[in-house]
């Protein structure tokens, strides 16, 4: 059991937090550029969100309200444990409500509600380097970014279209930031890519294992890479809705109903779905009260 009094506020020592904040500032100053940082040891394995946690721990203040989601879910093992760690080392309030939170740490999703400029979204990134699929050497990819040499990335899209007739990337779809850097938007689905463009909020990306931080500040131009005659497409949920809250126009999970064996859909963002259901229940209760039932 972690006891806050045995640790510095937000687990890391002040020097570490300051250094990470400096890297964050540099990342904000150069949108899409991967800033190296000294990734610290944490009581959590590499690959379990250590990059995101270090960013969260470095920026969190006593007044902040934290939300952690993993693949859209507030209650997954990873999300619960991160919430526990940060919560107990800081005594900050934790929430499942995206509107209430000031810092949202996420893996694989951007919340469905439009984010505000008083919020920060921290994304955990497993592979920050978008060019890794075309070039295995770090020294070469660095040079490629410096020279804006992205033909390899375009070639991989061309190759996909030639082999499969469509671009087969489902998540981590590369984006061009401010017409300068190609960036990996973390494993968010293509569906969330548009939310990065001209956003109100600050996005911070942390890769603990790869020791990189990068950022998209508010109102930054972020364009998903695509050819002039082959437009970028997101996942299509046309005609489908959440079976729990009835929402349409949101990212849905496809499930198989055990009883009927049929495909059913549920909101991927569980906090959003829960809130919609609560609102529905409340409005029904108000309606019933008004009717005197």
């Amino acid at each position, binding site marked *: 059991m972690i006891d806050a009094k045995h640790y510095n506020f937000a687990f890391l020592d002040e020097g570490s937090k300051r250094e990470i904040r400096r890297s964050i500032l540099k990342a904000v100053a150069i949108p899409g550029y991967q800033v190296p940082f000294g990734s610290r040891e944490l009581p959590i394995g590499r690959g379990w969100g250590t990059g995101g946690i270090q960013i969260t721990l470095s920026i969190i203040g006593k007044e902040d309200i934290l939300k952690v989601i993993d693949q859209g879910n507030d209650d997954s093992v990873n999300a619960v444990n991160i919430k526990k760690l940060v919560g107990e080392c800081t005594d900050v309030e934790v929430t499942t409500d995206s509107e209430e939170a000031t810092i949202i740490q996420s893996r694989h999703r951007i919340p469905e509600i439009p984010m505000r400029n008083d919020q920060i979204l921290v994304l955990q990134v497993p592979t920050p380097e978008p060019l890794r699929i075309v070039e295995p050497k770090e020294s070469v990819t660095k040079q490629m970014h410096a*020279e804006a*040499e992205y*033909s390899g990335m*375009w*070639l991989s899209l*061309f*190759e996909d*279209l*030639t*082999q499969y007739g469509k671009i087969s990337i489902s998540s981590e779809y590369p984006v061009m930031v401010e017409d300068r850097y190609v960036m990996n938007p973390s494993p968010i689905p293509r569906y969330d890519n548009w939310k990065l463009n001209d956003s109100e909020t600050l996005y911070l990306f942390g890769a603990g294992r790869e020791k990189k931080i990068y950022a998209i500040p508010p109102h930054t131009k972020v364009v998903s890479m695509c*050819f*002039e*005659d*082959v437009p970028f497409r997101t996942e299509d949920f046309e005609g489908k809705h959440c079976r729990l809250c009835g929402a349409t126009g949101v990212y849905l999970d496809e499930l198989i109903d055990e009883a009927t064996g049929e495909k059913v859909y549920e909101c991927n963002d569980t906090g959003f779905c829960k809130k919609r259901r609560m609102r529905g229940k409340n409005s029904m209760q108000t309606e019933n009260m008004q009717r005197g039932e």
Partner: protein
Amino acid sequence: MEKPVLRIDHLTVRYGKTCGYCRNGGKLNKNTCPHCKTVWACNDVNVSLYEGEILGIVGESGSGKSTLMKSLYFDFGITEGRGYLKDFHDGEEDIFSQSLQQKKYIKNHIMGMVYQNPVLGLRMDYSSAGNIAEKLIAAGNRNFRKMNERVTELLDAMEILQSRKKEPPKNFSGGMQQRVQISKALANNPKILLLDEVTTGLDLSVQARVLELIRKIHQEFHISIMLVSHDLAVIRMLADRTIVMLDGKIIEQGLTDQILDDPQQPYTQQLVHSLL
């Protein structure tokens, strides 16, 4: 007087620290300084390539032929010298002192290169269509349909079946790999084509097919070609003019027939007689 499409002045590529002896023109042991062991891979080379001509470069292994070609394509950094292209700032600016971006522009728009070893010029795990498209992408093309059409056109011209378009070059024979490389080099209609030992290692019938293709390209596209080979039969068949290199230096140059029928230098005479 006609302006050359490419002019190289005093090109030197050396590896090592150099010493007073070799810097002042002391006699080298082949291309290596006997004192400081500096290797003079190319030593004060001057070359001009004229519009529509095929310039052959011959010489034994280690004579500096490939170093010259790779330096021209910016694969190697040079030690000294200047280069001018008619299609780059009207031949007024030295290409070797340009920025990386400008060098990339020259590589993608003005020159095309075919290497002796296809591994250097192709991505063996990507489709042949992708390999050709890479050059188009590098030149700034972002229209998939147009690039695909150009790939189809080039594969047809190189007599590669459309059904093999999606296959990676690693599945191809040596001759086919070279034809994919040539297609890639021609993708952006370059003014100059650099061919570095393109037929070496191929069997005779495949060699003949590749050479015939080069002749066809030269006639159809009216392109200027620099052709490196240590095979004098290839040079006799294709080259209008020939330069002979030995130990990093040009020792003789002239019309191909003149060089091969009436060689002046002892090394050239030996080279020609060993052929005959």
